């Protein structure tokens, strides 16, 4: 046992003696020791009203059970979370929770990630003793994406406090009192104009608050959860992509205390359908003598690319994508360098104003509605185009054009038909992209490992959540082979290796590695340090 220093106190929890931070509450201290204490109303990102009564623990010497979420640790405290008294209190309280709960599990979206289910399964009574009819509070549409099932609500008020403390918009309230209490908005007003409302669905411990988008869409135990980064603006919120059947079913936030805390905005949350693109380029394509694109093998395609690049005529235009990672765009920039340089451009949609999260101002929906603009700027790419992410490209007659990721959707069908050489590394074959001489199918960010650099220069990793079409490859891998063919050394076999290669080329990335970035990322030019805190 450590001596008491200025900022720790010694406590014993369930027989484990430890020094815990002074000023912490019991629930936090226990968490650090790996002891979970059941709770509903407590949330580390919100105020703690101690009203759900689930976290009552036995503190030796105190006559009543203490709520662990608001009781500060004191020197010498001996705490029991699993004593008979504590367990009996939880079992008794759980019975009250289930008293009027409609047991909708078979039709409730929260099933499988519901804390009422979990705690009841662990410690609740096997049979309810009530023979009274349950109260009926009905279904309410809160506007926007939010539905409210009053019958399922356990009145933990996380949603009400969240809207006030984090979203900065007091749109929800508890109406009435006692057993007639229910959550509601101001009559017909809804939550739709708040950009932060979607988080209340995540923090609701039960299935009272539901996303209309996710309603009856998938069972959570069928979902895979992959840590990723939201690609929809330059904030780089840490997220989880929940997938099934190789489709993104929903997006949820992942805790990063330095970036987005526990939250994401509704724009990012609901803007995932574009990741589930159905029409994908399935194989490498090469333009034949007759002018049509024909399927070829990777070897054939890359051989053709290298051959033509050796003699490439005209100026070089390279178009990158801020929806793809550093590894992809960085190696593309290297290709441009080896080819004698050229114009490096990218386009990104932009919003005309930022929307700051009032309760966590480091988080905002940024101007740039793409993930990696800062990353591209580091590699020498220059922004072009308008606020819709359209236009801004020069005429490409007689030029060599390499396009990565940008779908060229806004361009006329004739774009590129007069290019001397056009190589497209892309996902979809739009009319402009179909003018390419070579089309190489590459992954979206969701189908590969990689990193984005956010608006503050934070480099963050993402992991593959989806399977690409069988012949598609991560762009960094394709470009690695091209670079090898241009004499730049053996291709890096992993995304991490590609990232290290970028560190050799760009001092800002030097000293960072995938291990150091971990699940929470690190700032450019930051001294080397291990990733801190808890992860997903």
């Amino acid at each position: 046992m450590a001596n008491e220093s200025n900022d720790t106190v010694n406590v014993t929890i369930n027989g484990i003696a430890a020094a815990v931070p002074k000023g912490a509450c019991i629930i936090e201290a226990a968490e650090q020791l790996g002891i979970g204490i059941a709770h509903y109303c407590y949330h580390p990102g919100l105020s703690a009203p101690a009203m759900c009564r689930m976290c009552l623990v036995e503190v030796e010497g105190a006559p009543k059970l203490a709520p662990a979420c608001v009781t500060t640790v004191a020197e010498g405290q001996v705490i029991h979370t699993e004593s008979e008294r504590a367990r009996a209190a939880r079992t008794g309280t759980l019975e009250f929770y289930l008293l009027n709960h409609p047991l909708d599990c078979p039709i409730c979206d929260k099933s499988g990630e519901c804390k009422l289910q979990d705690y009841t399964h662990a410690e609740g009574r096997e049979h309810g003793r009530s023979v009274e009819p349950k109260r009926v509070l009905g279904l309410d549409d809160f506007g926007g994406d939010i539905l409210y099932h009053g019958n399922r609500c356990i009145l933990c008020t996380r949603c009400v406090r969240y809207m006030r403390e984090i979203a900065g918009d007091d749109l929800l309230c508890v109406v009435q009192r006692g057993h007639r209490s229910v959550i509601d908005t101001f009559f017909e007003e809804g939550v739709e104009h708040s950009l932060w409302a979607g988080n209340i669905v995540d923090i609701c411990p039960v299935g009272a608050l539901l996303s209309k988008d996710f309603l009856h869409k998938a069972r959570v135990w069928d979902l895979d959860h992959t840590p990723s980064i939201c690609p929809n603006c330059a904030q780089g919120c840490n997220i989880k992509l929940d997938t099934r059947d190789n489709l993104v079913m929903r997006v949820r936030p992942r805790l990063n205390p330095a970036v987005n805390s526990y939250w994401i905005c509704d724009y990012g949350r609901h803007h995932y359908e574009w990741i589930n693109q159905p029409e994908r380029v399935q194989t490498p394509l090469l333009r034949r003598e007759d002018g049509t694109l024909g399927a070829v093998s990777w070897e054939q395609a890359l051989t053709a690319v290298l051959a033509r690049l050796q003699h490439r005529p005209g100026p070089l235009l390279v178009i990158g994508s801020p929806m793809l990672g550093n590894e992809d765009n960085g190696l593309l920039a290297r290709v441009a360098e080896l080819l004698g340089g050229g114009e490096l451009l990218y386009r990104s949609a932009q919003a005309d104003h930022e929307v700051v999260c009032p309760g966590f101002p480091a988080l905002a929906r940024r101007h740039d509605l793409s993930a990696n603009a800062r990353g591209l700027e580091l590699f020498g790419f220059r922004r072009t185009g308008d606020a819709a992410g359209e236009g801004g490209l020069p005429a490409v007659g007689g030029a060599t054009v390499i396009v990565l990721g940008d779908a060229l959707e806004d361009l006329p069908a004739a774009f590129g038909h007069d290019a001397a050489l056009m190589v497209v590394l892309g996902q979809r074959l739009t009319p402009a992209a179909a003018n390419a001489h070579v089309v190489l199918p590459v992954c979206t960010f969701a189908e590969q490992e990689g990193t984005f650099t956010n608006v503050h220069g934070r480099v963050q990793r993402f992991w593959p959540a989806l399977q690409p079409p069988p012949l598609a490859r991560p762009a960094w891998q394709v470009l690695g082979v091209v670079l090898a063919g241009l004499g730049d050394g053996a291709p890096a076999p992993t995304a991490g290796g590609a990232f290290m290669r970028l560190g050799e080329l760009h001092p800002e990335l030097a000293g960072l590695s995938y291990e150091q970035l971990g699940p929470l990322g690190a700032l450019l030019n930051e001294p080397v340090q291990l990733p801190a805190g808890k992860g997903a």
Partner: protein
Amino acid sequence: MGGNPGWAGETGEFGHLTEADVRGTTYVGARPPEGTTPGASCAYPYQVATRAPDAPLFEGPYRARLEKILSRYPDRQGALLPVLSLAQEIRGHLSPESMAQVAGALGLAPAYVRGVASFYTMYHKQPVGEHVIQVCTNVACNLCGGDDVLAAFLKATATEPGEISADGKYTVIAAECLGACGFPTAVQVNETYFENVTPDDVPAILERLAQGAPVASPAAPARGS
């Protein structure tokens, strides 16, 4: 009914007091709508028979009262209950529109105001009859026939609990303990307590109410103003 019209039935050893003596009406005197000293202006009866559902909330003398109320609390939120009470005093109940106006006057979110207003029993969210008759049926009055008094009022006004009578004059509600347990059954009609009420007293009480403001609240605005 006993000799003292202030309440029904026995009055113990103080039968010599007049109703005005007991209710203190002479002492209280006139309480003008703009309030008196600021400290005494946050507490006016807000369950009154005269009401104007469409009247503006914070104009004229009520503006002056609002200012006095606001001056008594360190922040505008502290004034919420007195201002809600003022709104109900003027308009008779708290509609969503009234709540929104109160919210605007205090710089609070309307949903927040709704949450607070809905917590309290005495803020009516629906219109109520001119005379809100609340009969205590809690234990001390219940032991002495409180349920019968409630039934008698419901029958005499031909209403169900919480409804408005056909002529718009009465709403009868069962109330929790009114704090007059020594004088069962206690009945509160708007701002006035009637004590020692039995079912036999009900017709006389209703007759008195029908005659119009029998014990006018000193603070009630004069009819027609």
